[in-house]
């Protein structure tokens, strides 16, 4: 199976052909995938070199000039390094862009912590008005990319699409907005975010819990969580492929009207200082099916 990142350049290259407003801005990373698109659209595939502040600023300028910029590099360099540009050049200027990251929390464990960004969504969460897509499968990534680039009447929405090497076996019918109900039960609600779904389904096999699937986490689908807790218990477990607790506040806000408990599972804050393979990092953060089952059953009453 190809990865979400494999899907990115072909899908966006197609959008460059279809929509003259679309422009791609790169900072070296990912440029090989756009070689053919660069030949066809030399003015709309822009590689600024290894300059991430300029990457975001140029994206904002393109938006101010009426274009729909798709801005791409690894999550560390897209969200964390030029964070003030994300905050001011897009948010404060009141213009939109589609930020598409790769490498996620630890897609390249041998590359070490410099290329890991488990905090990207939490950092972005300090800003207002961002839509955050966390696809769990390459097909979902394609759907959500199309949704993001074409979003809104004026196409000026601020959207973050987090592509990962982690993936579920099968794609779900995502719509860029709502959580999906994958399983129904009575003893609590487990929200699986993006590529965590397969592990969550394995971990909750035979448990009497509702499983919601979230491939779009901002805005947080509060209505879906409230509906789920109406029929199941108000114990909620969030399982996220990024920093543990990233969506805990959103879940708490959704359940303000009822007594409830929320357990936020995800990547630990402490730097692991390990290389190795993706699966080894998943296990180290307690996000494999066996660890999840233990932590979920330990939490539910």
């Amino acid at each position, binding site marked *: 199976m190809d990865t979400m990142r494999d899907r990115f350049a072909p899908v966006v290259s197609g959008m460059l052909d279809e929509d003259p407003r679309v422009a791609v801005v790169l900072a070296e990373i990912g440029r090989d995938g756009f070689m053919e698109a660069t030949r066809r659209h030399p003015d709309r595939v822009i590689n600024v070199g290894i300059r991430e502040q300029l990457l975001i600023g140029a994206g904002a*300028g393109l*938006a*101010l000039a*009426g274009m729909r910029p798709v801005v791409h590099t690894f999550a560390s360099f897209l969200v964390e390094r030029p964070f003030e*540009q994300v905050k*001011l050049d897009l948010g404060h*200027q009141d213009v939109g862009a589609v930020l598409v990251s790769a490498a996620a929390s630890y897609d390249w464990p041998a590359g070490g912590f410099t290329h890991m960004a488990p905090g990207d969504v939490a950092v972005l969460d300090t800003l207002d008005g961002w839509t955050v897509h966390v696809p769990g499968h390459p097909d979902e990534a394609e759907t959500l990319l199309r949704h993001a680039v074409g979003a809104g009447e004026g196409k000026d929405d601020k959207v973050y699409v987090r592509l990962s090497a982690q993936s579920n076996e099968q794609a779900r019918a995502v719509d860029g907005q709502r959580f999906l109900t994958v399983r129904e039960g009575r003893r609590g609600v487990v929200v699986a975010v993006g590529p965590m779904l397969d592990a969550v389904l394995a971990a909750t096999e035979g448990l009497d819990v509702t499983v919601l699937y979230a491939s779009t986490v901002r805005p947080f689908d509060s209505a879906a969580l409230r509906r789920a807790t109406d029929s199941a218990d108000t114990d909620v477990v969030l399982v996220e492929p990024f920093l543990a607790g990233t969506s805990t506040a959103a879940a708490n806000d959704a359940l303000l009207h009822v007594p409830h408990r929320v357990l936020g599972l995800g990547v630990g804050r402490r730097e692991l200082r390990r290389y190795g393979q993706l699966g080894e990092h998943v296990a180290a953060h307690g996000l494999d099916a066996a660890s999840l089952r233990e932590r979920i059953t330990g939490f539910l009453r």
Partner: protein
Amino acid sequence: MTTTYGFTELPELMGLMTGAEKHGPAATSTLDVLWVLYDRVLRVEPGRSEDPERDRFLLSKGHGPMAYYAVLAAKGFLPVEWLPGFGSYDSPLGHHPDRVLVPGAEIGSGSLGHGLPIAVGTALGLRAQGRVDPAVWVLIGDAELDEGSNHEAIAYAGPAGLDRLHTVVIDNSSASHALPGGIAARFEVAGWSAETVDGRDHEALHAAFTAPHPGRPRVVVARVEPKNA
């Protein structure tokens, strides 16, 4: 809305904001450059803020924006009546400008080092749409040039041949560590067309602003009296 104000009335307009007709260097260092641009160079006017063919002026140096507001008021972009409210809760005019609140302001600024990268993107966007006429101007300060984001933009814009991009650097010697070889040289090695002029000489500024620079972005370094003199 009156548009009968000239350059000699600008101190009076600035006095409406500060309560005095004497102003700090941060406010007046840009005054002549702004006036020459808005009076004789930029193809902008009130009511054309959505016209895609307009020139773009991006005030990156958002500190001390009184001269900017005075020029915008003199040219009819915003009512003179707004000026006395400068910085108050109900005023759209802050100590740093906000594009969402100030008619005619292309960007909100205050945090240094953002305007030039955004201007690069604007020039790229206009080029991608086949709009070859609009010029993009960005005004920065010499100390603002310390920000690395500007150097990313300078290094990129030259080789990219963004010939509709123009930068004005107001040099009031406020950088703690001056650029070795001078400001213009930093742009020239990156492939820009560069000229340094007296930032108080309107004819010299106009000539420098309108000089041809085929295939290259253009920087005009406008020297004014040192900030701490």
